């Protein structure tokens, strides 16, 4: 850990300690429904600004913070009052770093980075604070996906309640606003700034009928048989490839436009040997977030058991970078290739936020890399 990072780490520890003292006891109130959410101090999303100057993070309790990465000082702190702590929240910087969007609760807040002034608030979620799911649970309204297009004029948001919107900052209006389904599978922009993809189907924002067009991708049998449903998605630097991660610790790299699977890796065994059938569900461990390195050669992943691992895209070699005591929900690889940052919460429900320098990551990769559980490509898949 270099000096800057060590200083940042100390700052973070202080913030965590202060935050623990500020836990809102209101959450202990009896609730009539089964509400699925994260502890208030859980870090739900982290994004470095494309120029590496800032780091934005959002907590389940609705707090947004922006750090100046050179000083580790907060340049923005804002809290949204929410009836429940969140399960999902998202932040994203515009490509030119003039705006920061934060999807918290049912609203997307757009900040002017030049003076940290709130420019506008867009209601991109739905009205009810809790979203009902057919397993009988409720999840607080929030955002599963939030991403600017490459021009920084269109902001795509996907809410827990399955509302899909594209907000045009030029027109000050939604050019897409639809509720689609009951299962908000994460989505990303494609390189043409016209299509949005979940990896299996694409949505043309200028031709919204039909809404999502199913692709017929070449799937890798090993991924189909061993990996389970997808839990997170990220696009590479030019948005021509996407990586999707699954609930049984796999990542699959796909051509963004065709959906064809280019490679699939199971990072660690999905379940112990000798286990089959319904019992494998006990070993579910979703990879909650993935992020590409700026050179697209490495992918970093965090999972619900607190592991931070990097995967070499060409070979599938896996390196454990850190192991935390609690689930991790978010990871981001800085565009300036200086560091990675990840977040979640400890078993004791304190915040987890940490950064690791890329130099340290590379050193670990050089000495600690291991073969994945399996590595398959179209040529080797059987």
């Amino acid at each position: 850990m270099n000096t800057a990072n060590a200083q940042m780490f100390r700052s973070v520890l202080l913030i965590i300690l202060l935050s623990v003292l500020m836990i809102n006891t209101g959450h202990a109130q009896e609730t009539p429904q089964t509400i699925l959410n994260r502890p208030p101090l859980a870090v739900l999303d982290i994004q470095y600004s494309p120029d590496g100057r800032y780091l934005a993070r959002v907590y389940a309790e609705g707090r947004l913070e922006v750090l100046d990465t050179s000083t580790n000082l907060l340049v923005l702190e804002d809290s949204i009052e929410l009836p429940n702590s969140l399960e999902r929240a998202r932040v994203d910087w515009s490509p030119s770093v003039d705006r920061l969007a934060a999807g918290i609760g049912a609203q997307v807040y757009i900040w002017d980075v030049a003076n940290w002034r709130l420019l506008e608030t867009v209601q991109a979620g739905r009205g009810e604070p809790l979203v009902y799911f057919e397993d009988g649970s409720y999840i607080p309204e929030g955002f599963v996906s939030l991403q600017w297009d490459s021009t920084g004029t269109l902001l795509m948001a996907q809410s827990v309640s399955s509302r899909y919107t594209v907000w045009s900052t030029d027109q000050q209006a939604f050019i897409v606003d639809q509720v689609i389904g009951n299962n908000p599978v994460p989505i990303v922009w494609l390189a043409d700034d016209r299509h949005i993809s979940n990896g299996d189907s694409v949505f043309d924002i200028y031709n919204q009928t039909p809404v999502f067009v199913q692709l017929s991708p070449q799937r890798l049998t090993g991924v189909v048989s061993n990996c389970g449903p997808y839990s997170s998605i990220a696009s590479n630097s030019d948005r021509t490839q996407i990586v999707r991660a699954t609930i049984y610790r796999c990542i699959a790299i796909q051509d963004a436009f065709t959906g064809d699977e280019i490679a699939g890796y199971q990072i660690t065994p999905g379940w112990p040997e000798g286990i089959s059938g319904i019992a494998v569900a006990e070993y579910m461990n979703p990879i909650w977030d993935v992020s590409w390195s700026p050179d697209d050669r490495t992918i970093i992943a965090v999972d619900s058991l607190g592991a931070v691992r990097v995967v070499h895209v060409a070979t599938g070699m896996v390196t454990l970078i850190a192991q935390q005591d609690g689930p991790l929900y978010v990871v981001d690889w800085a565009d300036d290739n200086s560091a990675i940052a990840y977040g979640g919460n400890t078993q004791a429900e304190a915040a987890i936020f940490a950064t690791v320098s890329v130099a340290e990551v590379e050193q670990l990769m050089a000495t600690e890399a291991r073969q994945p559980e399996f590595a398959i490509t179209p040529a080797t898949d059987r």
Partner: protein
Amino acid sequence: LGQNPPWYAQGSYSAQTAWNTIVAYNNTSAPRYVDTFWLYVAHNGTQGYGNIYVDNIRFTCVPNTPTPTPTPTTTPTAVAETYKIRFSNELGQTASGWSSGEIGYIETGVQIVGEAFQIQLNAPSPQNAFNRVMVNGADPQYIYFFKADGTSSSVTIVYPPELNKPNFAVNVTAGGCLTVNNNGLPRTIVCNWATPAQYPVHAIVHELGHVFTNRSIIANSTNIDESTRGLLYAAIASTYSGICTPAFNNANNPNPFAEMVFDVSRCESINDSRGQNGIVMGRLVGGAWVRGERGWGSGPDNIFTEFQQHPLDFTLFLNDPPDTVVDETAADMFLNWVYRRRTNNPPTYRTTVPGIWEGFRNQEWSNNGGGSDDFNYPGDARFEWMNRVMNQIFTLKGW
């Protein structure tokens, strides 16, 4: 009929009984099954098995439309000898006495299952189809229906003396039924009825779903669900774990789920017309498994209704362990498939909302006993998925 081609009749016949069940056929082009009728034929002289002079006897045709409150129309003995089912009180268990009305419910349930199987197999009769799938090869060669009196949930099943089987203690909620598929004992359906359940015929079909699940075991499978619980259980378990069992893996050649109308549905999930975004049953992106509240033939899922005999959110079932949840969902999926298969043949998808058939319907039942139209076709999605699953089961079992 025999005197007026192309119609002909075929069915099981017993000279010792006064009533027989016969199915009508039409062989205009190639001999084929036309429809299922109950032909209650008053015996008036024959020339032997399979050679009945039908024009010499009286008969009544009853279309196979479902009857919500069925009235027994045949004697227990006649049906028991046709369908391989036996009642406790006819096998010496006088203390376990089914009433004639209860026997009627059971016979109707068995008949309904037989008709669905007959369509699935293109079999000569529902009895033939039922016995092939549910009984043949078993020891003993029948499903045993045991009646408890509904006074206590502790029930002791007593088997016919000639089987030389020990009594078997089970816990059956008063008013409910339970299926015993223990190895070494006859497949048994026990109903703990002081008075019959609210939807007795549907309850029987649900229990027969458990028998079917057990009959669908592939003993030499490497997958524990397929080898110990059965293929239907394994299919539902695939949606539960998100990992396909070998029989239903999309990577199989041929893929059991290839080229479906609901083309996103796979072994891991049932999706409606909205694709990935529309989960009917399976894992949500957050990881939770949903049995789903849409597409059933009735609801909602916190009370007993005809087509959700083990509703997941019913108070008594809230703490069901995962294997029970999967097993009971399998039985309810079977129940809905059986009814829809009988009333929507050949299957149609994405044509009607909510649909005029029984079983799976395109309706949303969340907190809504009346149901509301669901134009994402969740009932059709469930039905198509189940058709693929049942096709694969029937193929792999060689029925």
